[in-house]
């Protein structure tokens, strides 16, 4: 979607705000709240303002916020009819009108302090307005499905989901145009992105209903009781996210330390991890399996830490003894990865044994790392030759697919790289500074390929040296 003029955005926001203000006016006029109802509204609205600050934003995926729960608690409390003075025949009608005032709790959740601090009043007005409208619609649905006086848990279960769904649909429906207009991203993509919200809102709505039910019996004292476990779950979840990020950070730093040792492979581990992730995504791995694959790829050369520097950076061909010492790093890598429980199943990824394809096995990871490693070895400059162009690397991979490499992994990598349109190869690793100018021949595999006496000598196409 192309950028629309600012004027459109402003008119849209104004329209939403006007509709919301009208709805608010109507809701207030038709409701006759008791003092208990006003108290409940006030308590839940105040909690709502602060609840949004406890929203969790996981690294990938949608924000998880307890806002839905509070809105539902308010709607349930007010729609029950228990807070309406019980006189006259219009009792359930009054209760429904009062329930629509529960939308003020939703509006309170739209108040986001940073917007006030930065004086972004348009955003503030839009958020409170759209959430109010979503709340009014949800309240109407709920009081229709669960009229005042109903006291049946199964019926509540049936009414909660349509209510939550109404809330979520209006919330998303009103917000997507604004985000689309402001960022120029296609609305369809945005709608797709927030799809999990429709499932996620249900448990919150159910707990919210139970919360409202207890509130009616016990008053505001249930608020801390409900808040404590939710806040603890949230805080602990946040710290697990932080710890995981810190762990990944630690691995990266240590891998960097390793690469300081081996000057020609700067960035190698990170790139192999990226290529391995490409392949994993292409093969439809789950998020957990992808994470494991990425760590294994990142650490596949960790054993090089035990190889003395003068051997790692030797510009000439290694002697047989030296080669044995260097080769030992693979066993060490496997041993080290095996010491980490969740990487143990993929520990063979660090072994050179998988540089030979012998039919399908359960564990694809070692083959994936082998392909990613070989691709990076070919498209980056090594101590024994310069980088090869991408096309040559593809050809090499394809030629050895089925004998040395797993064919599915090769296809997946090539497809993924082509689709992303990223380029690798000579001329793209110019930021490396080499003390000794590397030679420009040899294809190599896993960085040791053309040293390995056991491997057949690859047909080496003549490559132009870099200008």
């Amino acid at each position, binding site marked *: 979607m192309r950028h629309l003029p600012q004027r459109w955005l402003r008119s849209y926001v104004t329209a939403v705000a006007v509709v919301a203000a009208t709805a608010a006016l109507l809701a207030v006029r038709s409701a006759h709240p008791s003092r208990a109802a006003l108290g409940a509204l006030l308590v839940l609205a105040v909690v709502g303002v602060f609840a949004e600050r406890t929203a969790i934003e996981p690294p990938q995926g949608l924000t998880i916020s307890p806002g839905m729960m509070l809105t539902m608690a308010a709607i349930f409390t007010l729609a029950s009819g228990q807070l309406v003075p019980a006189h006259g025949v219009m009792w359930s009608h009054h209760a429904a009108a009062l329930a629509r005032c529960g939308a003020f709790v939703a509006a309170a959740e739209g108040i986001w302090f940073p917007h006030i601090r930065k004086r972004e009043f348009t955003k503030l007005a839009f958020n409170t307005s759209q959430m109010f409208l979503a709340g009014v619609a949800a309240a109407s649905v709920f009081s229709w499905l669960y009229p005042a006086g109903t006291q049946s*848990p199964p019926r509540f279960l049936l009414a909660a989901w349509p209510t939550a769904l109404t809330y979520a649909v209006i919330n998303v429906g009103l917000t997507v145009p604004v985000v689309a207009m402001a960022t120029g991203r296609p609305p369809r993509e945005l709608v797709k992105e927030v799809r999990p919200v429709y499932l996620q809102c249900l448990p919150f709505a159910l707990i919210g209903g139970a919360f409202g039910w207890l509130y009616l019996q016990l008053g505001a004292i249930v608020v801390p*009781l*409900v808040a404590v476990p939710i806040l603890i779950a949230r805080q602990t979840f946040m710290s697990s996210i932080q*710890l995981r990020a*810190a762990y990944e950070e630690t691995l990266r730093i240590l891998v960097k330390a390793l690469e300081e040792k081996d000057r020609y492979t700067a960035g190698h581990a990170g790139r192999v991890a990226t290529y391995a992730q490409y392949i994993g995504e292409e093969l439809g791995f789950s998020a957990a399996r992808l994470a494991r694959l990425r760590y294994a790829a990142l650490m596949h050369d960790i054993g090089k830490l035990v190889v003395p520097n003068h051997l790692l950076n030797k510009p000439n061909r290694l002697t047989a003894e030296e080669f044995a010492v260097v080769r030992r790093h693979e066993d060490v890598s496997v041993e080290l990865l095996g010491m980490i429980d969740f990487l143990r199943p993929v520990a063979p990824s660090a072994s050179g044994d998988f540089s030979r394809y012998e039919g399908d096995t359960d564990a694809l990871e070692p083959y994936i790392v082998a392909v990613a490693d070989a691709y990076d070895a070919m498209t980056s400059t090594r101590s024994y030759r310069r980088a090869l162009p991408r096309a040559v690397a593809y050809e090499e991979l394809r030629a050895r697919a089925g004998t040395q490499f797993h064919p599915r992994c090769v296809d997946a990598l090539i497809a993924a790289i082509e689709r992303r349109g990223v380029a690798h190869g000579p001329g793209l690793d110019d930021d490396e500074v080499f003390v000794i100018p590397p030679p420009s021949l040899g294809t190599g595999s896993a960085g040791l390929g053309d040293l390995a006496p056991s491997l057949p000598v690859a047909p080496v196409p003549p490559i132009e040296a870099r200008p």
Partner: protein
Amino acid sequence: VTDRRVRLATVGAAGLAVVVAAAADPHGRIPGLAALGLIILLAELVGFRLGDGSFVPLAPAAVLVLIRTTALRGAPHNDDLRFLVVIVLAELLAVAARPPAACARGRWQPSFVRLAGGFAGFAAYALVVRYFDGGADRDVTLLALSAATIAVIGIDLLGRPHRWADLVHSGGVRAYAALAASGMLMALAAHGVGNSPAMGLLGVALFAVPLLAASYSFAQVDAVRRTTAQTIRALSVVPELANLATTGHADRVARLAGAIADHLALSPSERINLEHAARLHHLGHVCIDDTDVRGGLADPADVTETTARMLRETGHLAEAARVLDAAALHHRGKDASLPPETRLAAQVLKVASDYDDLTDGDAARQTAAIESLYAAPGYVYDPRVLAALELVTA
């Protein structure tokens, strides 16, 4: 695998009992009580994993629901017997089904603690209700339930080996707070207050969700923490595999440093920093370019500084780098301006590492090693640490 099979069989048997009870007496109180017994059994199997590896089952929260169900009308009453039967049966089954993590102090111990807590909680609830002549209004209910919660959670805490500081550090306080709040909510939701309608097991299930989410988050934290510890252990053997340190050195030094830290009552967080530093203190050696020091040995302070430099950039090992920095500064006699606890931790690291270099894991060389550490000039080793070493190795 056998353990899992036993667990499945036990839970299956309890589930079957609930179904049979529901079929035999659909409108009576027995099926509900049987379901509560099953919930207690399940709640013994799931729980919070704390930072020190211990396990806090969710069962106390389920026991609170059972207490409120049976003690509603105060004691003495027929319900005394119902409570007794349900909790004893559930706990007997739990003995067979309990996961290994919960058996740190034996298979039976948690069941005894739970029974003691349950009886105390039941008595507390029933006594409060009785004191107010069987009243069931809001205030009496809240008072009785608070008393029961304090009794159940309090006795569970007494049954744990924790010191208070460790409990705070390992997340135990958060776990117990979530248990207490959720337990009260579930107990309140299961039965109406006064004449209000009850949500029954639906209420229990709904308010179990935040509790389960909390325990899931604890499990996530535990998984990352364990992976981090294993990674540190893997990295600690790298210098040994590179023949730059003797086999098992890092592990022995870390254990010894931990024992000395306990003896000197270092704070839990400083103890962990010290252990990380002890495990990794030789790691920098593999990154020192051996083309410069080929054949010879790198300067120990250089090694420590290189390790510290590597770790300083990382997020959560930066604290361990602080201990290593202090150790390197001490080696050069420049550590006077550091905070006392950091200096002490660095001293512990130095003493533990030098002691291990002298003994090489050989118990026969202990006395000689300690004597030669004492023989060093006074400024090299802190006498408090040496005294602690002597006690710990004795």
